[in-house]
């Protein structure tokens, strides 16, 4: 794993559901150690992009490399946080059970999670501020708490690259801040974090790297360079209104954008 090798390299990736193309000829390189937001309107293929990277959806063409090798060989380097709504939260499991699932990939067949897995899981729960909920049944959690549990499950995977699908969907402001803090910690520790995100207001605040997606890749790169008015217009078409100020020019990355999407 040399540092000059990109964390994710996607070349000529096209994905179609039956006959309808969902992603068209995507070329995307994500360097290691960035916190990247995938931004785009509904139906832009954001979730599909992540699922294709993770091998959950078969591409029609193109390839994905994680640190230079196909995903199947690099599974241990990758952690995945699905959308919270994708599972049944009335499933009979405790918070600790769910977090320990993050160790199952490393455990392999036939081995049961033991003391070590327990400790790792409790540690991860402490990092997301859920240590005291370890034995709570998962249906008794709020939306934000459920999201934190999912995040803890990804943390115990001890990965290099993290993929998160809409982690801020339906969570409270406190949780959102806590999650952002954690993601920034991960980046500081040299991990790569890829987040499907839809709130344009917070892009410049949260991320240092961005990919604008609408079936094809409109722009990608450091937020300051890629998150431009022109690129947003190209991504969202006419559904965007600029309220105040201007988008950051190259080099003026700190300014807030003041963008809303009217859909």
């Amino acid at each position: 794993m040399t540092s000059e090798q990109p964390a994710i390299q996607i070349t000529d990736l096209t994905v179609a559901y039956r006959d309808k193309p969902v992603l068209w000829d995507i070329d995307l390189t994500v360097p290691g150690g960035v916190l990247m937001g995938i931004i785009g309107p509904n139906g832009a293929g954001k979730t599909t992009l992540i699922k294709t990277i993770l091998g959950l959806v078969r591409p029609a063409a193109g390839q994905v490399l994680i640190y230079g090798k196909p995903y199947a060989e690099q599974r241990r380097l990758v952690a995945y946080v699905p959308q919270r709504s994708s599972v049944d939260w009335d499933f009979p499991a405790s918070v600790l059970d769910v977090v320990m699932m993050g160790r199952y990939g490393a455990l392999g067949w036939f081995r049961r999670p033991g003391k070590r897995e327990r400790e790792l899981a409790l540690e991860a729960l402490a990092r997301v501020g859920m240590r005291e909920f370890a034995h709570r049944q998962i249906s008794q959690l709020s939306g934000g708490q459920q999201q934190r549990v999912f995040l803890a499950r990804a943390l115990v995977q001890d990965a290099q690259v993290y993929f998160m699908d809409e982690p801020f969907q339906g969570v409270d402001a406190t949780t959102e801040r806590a999650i952002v803090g954690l993601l920034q910690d991960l980046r500081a520790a040299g991990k790569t974090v890829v987040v499907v995100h839809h709130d344009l207001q917070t892009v410049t605040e949260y991320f240092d790297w961005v990919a604008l997606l609408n079936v094809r890749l409109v722009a990608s790169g450091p937020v300051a360079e890629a998150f431009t008015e022109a690129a947003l217009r190209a991504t969202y078409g006419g559904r965007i209104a600029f309220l105040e100020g201007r988008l950051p020019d190259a080099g003026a990355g700190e300014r807030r954008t003041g963008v809303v999407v009217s859909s």
Partner: protein
Amino acid sequence: MRKEARERIAHTRKLAIEYMNPLTEIILIAVVTAIACALPGVFLVLRRMAMVSDAITHTVLLGIVLAFFVVRDITSPVLAIAAAAAGVATVALIELLHRTERIREDAAIGLVFPFLFSIAVILIARYAGNVHLDVDAVLLGELAFAPLDRYTLGDVDLGPRALWLMSGILLMSLLLLLLFYKELKLATFDAALAAALGFAPAALHYGLMSVVSLTAVGAFNAVGSVLVVALMVAPPAAAYLLTDRLSHMLVLSAAFGALAAILGCLAAFALDASLAGAMAVVTGLIFGAAWVFAPERGLLAQALRYARQRQEFAQAMLLVHLLHHEATPQEAVECDPSHLNEHLRWDAAFTAQILRRAEQRGLLVRQKDLITLTESGRRLAAQTLGGEG
């Protein structure tokens, strides 16, 4: 039941001389029953309630048994009313369980109907073994004997009772369908809007469930409870693969039901096998034919479309790829025909085929180690992207 049943069938055949023509009458009863089942079945399939019909057709038996203990007369109309009430009560119980949020709806269905059906079976086995109420008949139907049970007015033979019963139920269904067509349509496709417009979807829902229950009661005398499910679900399911319009779906379902009834009866006469079973098999075959051959949604149509689209899609993909890398530093690598298959992850033969087709269409020009888009190719690529963006 078996030996006795065979004797009764033989007896029926002997009566063929006496009555006008029992075989024709059987087919007629089967057709009316099939149509009466198919119409409410359309709404069950569209409202994702097909398995509720499975539950209802089983639990109506409990209503019949309980009513029989009260009135002690197997021909009393009270039995039919009690049976329909049991069907509606089943639906209510399933919904109540589901709404406690302790179990999901499918588990609630799977819990309620075997329970009620078991009670009915036990009651029959225990207390009603000698009367004309046997579980096999309820489960399997006895259409073959239907012509024996006739209405007479004085000396005039008015035809089989089952034919009158099912015709009455069918007429009632048709009448309700005509009266509430608009409301049913709206409540089926947009329950929230229907409620907002004051159409009381709950009332419609229970009305529909009452019709399903009554139909089940009438029909299972003839075809048995499991096969009522076949007549209610299979024809509408087949029709749903052929049309998007509710009215067409209703007509098609009725036609499929009638067809299954006729072919099923003829097959059963030929094989001397279960009438109801044969009808169910034919409904399955009709569905199978629709599944494979439906012009838009059938397996064959899907496969053909997929093959065609794979070609068109691959060509478009190639054009987009070329457009992206046109006049970029990587052009020499990305647009080199001998490396193209690596970049697009296609096998060599497929790549060559797609390149040839695209060249024939004048979308690109192949030079020695570079492919370039023609003007029309560039336009098509831009169109592809524009259309999606």
